[in-house]
């Protein structure tokens, strides 16, 4: 299965992925509606995008009481809007923090890999996000661990 491969070292924090994602998902240039989210590290000297891994368990899918989350042709867990009642159980069941809730539609929303043609990967000018047939992985761990020393030192957390 093709997945979103993230190379955080290449991310410049331009947020084009968030803009493209929200436009694809809800037709608006509105990062709050994006399901890929760029986080700053090291006091805004580096950035990394974070999104759903399409994990094997599919905690959101198995938690949904009405079967509103399914697997689409791209292999992504996808919310069926006309089934979703907005109970939020998926948002709390997802241990990755990548299922969101839209108060204006009262539905859950999440990355569905744009059905197999992810807008974020197209939009990223530095190939920090690529859509490839590789095993999914924890793309950000090492990057984040190295780049959090500033956070730890300045915020009184370091030892």
């Amino acid at each position, binding site marked *: 299965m093709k997945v979103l491969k993230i190379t955080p070292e290449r991310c410049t924090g331009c947020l084009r992925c968030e803009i493209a994602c929200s436009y694809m998902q809800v037709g608006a240039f509105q990062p709050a509606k994006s399901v890929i989210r760029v986080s700053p590290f090291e006091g805004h000297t580096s950035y990394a995008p974070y999104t759903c891994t399409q994990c094997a368990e*599919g905690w959101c899918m198995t938690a949904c009481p009405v079967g509103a*989350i*399914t697997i689409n042709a791209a292999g992504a867990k996808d919310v069926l809007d006309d089934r979703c009642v907005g109970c939020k159980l998926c948002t*709390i069941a997802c241990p990755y923090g990548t299922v969101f809730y839209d108060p204006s539609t009262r539905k859950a929303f999440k990355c569905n890999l744009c059905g197999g043609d992810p807008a974020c990967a197209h939009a990223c000018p530095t190939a920090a996000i690529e859509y490839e047939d590789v095993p999914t992985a924890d793309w950000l761990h090492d990057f984040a661990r190295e780049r959090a020393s500033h956070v730890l030192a300045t915020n009184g*957390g370091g030892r």
Partner: protein
Amino acid sequence: MARRHLIIGGGTAGMNAMRTIREEEREPSEITLVSAEKPYSRMVLPYYLDRSIAESHVFTASAALLAQWKVKAHLGRRVTALDVKTNVCTLDDGTKVEYDDCLIATGSAPVRAPVPGADGRNVHSFWTLDECRGVIASIAPGSHVVMVGAGFISFTILNSILALGAKLTIVEVAPRILPRMVDAAGAEVVESWLEAHGVAIRTDVKVTKIEDAKGKKRLKFAAGADLVCDVVIMATGIKTNLDWLKGAGVQIDRGVVVDDHLRSNVPNVYAAGDVAEGRDLVSGQPALHAIEPTAQEHGRVVGANMAGKDVAYKGSLIVNIVEVCHLDAASFGAWDDAKAEAVSGLKRDRAAYRKLLFSGDRLTGAIIIGRSGDVWTTNDVGMLKGLVQTGVSLGRFKDHLKAHPFDVKTAYIASGTTGALLPETVLGRPSKAPGETPVAV
């Protein structure tokens, strides 16, 4: 001869078990379902209450689906006795069903405060579809509804009652709201939010009597003024539906005591969901969780084991989330462990509250409250669940979280939580989509 599975209770746990049997089995088996009600999801009832969904939306299995799964269903029937020596169960119409293995998944029932008038006209519980229909029929725009009990279930229907145009008063015997879901500081945030949104709340009051008063209802209290209203909803607790099983030889403590395969002391009798006293993931101790995710996971593990797999279950994590008037309140794991090392953060102007509980450098529980429109609320809800579920070692990031309980993401990512989670599955294989279940032939 094909193996004969008996499923008692067609709610969340029973449905998940039947589906998983059909997903996992190598050889066709017989499934018999006995359920007092048609299969539906109780936790979806609040959305039917305010008619944001049609009644049909609450059902989790149609007759056609049960036929496709080759389930022999006795719907509207109760099991009244189980003979674990002869492997026969008896239904309320006298029918006997033989089985090779059986699942007890009869869920819970509401309990009303034992006061005179508690069973009177226009006094309702809200647990079953029938009760939901009763409440729908009794509320009109402008009705004054009094909810007795400020627990989780009251809060799941609060938005719907307001959406119906009713006026709402909540009365609670404890000194504060949500006593089994958030701590006192969190309860205060939710309480003032609700009061600002027009919900009247009276805590520390004991209902002593409910009377009829010229077409209305009058509630009397041990102290304080009476309340007159149109409709009373009692959400004063639940109990397991296990009376029928007493004396059958299946060990019951708070619920049916089960091992890590969800087996009772009788090896071919399993229990799942609200009635099963299984392992709590965080404490490792036996616990009764009346929540949907536990019923789902229990049901799937039982289904796999009934189908001949050998699936051990790690334990269930307490997770609760409820939204009231666009404020989210959620709690996880050992959020109420008074002995744990804890840190909390409050941003009163944003109605945002966090509490994080640690054992060593691992997160064992959390409370999170915040406006549902705040992007970071949903983000962090999931991440806190991941931290508690994996129990990853936070190392230096523990101090960071303690200094900055609102900055969860950095600690989450830098601790490698994602990597710890990726290999995790409940059944030891990727999950199938809800509609994907193959049919045994």
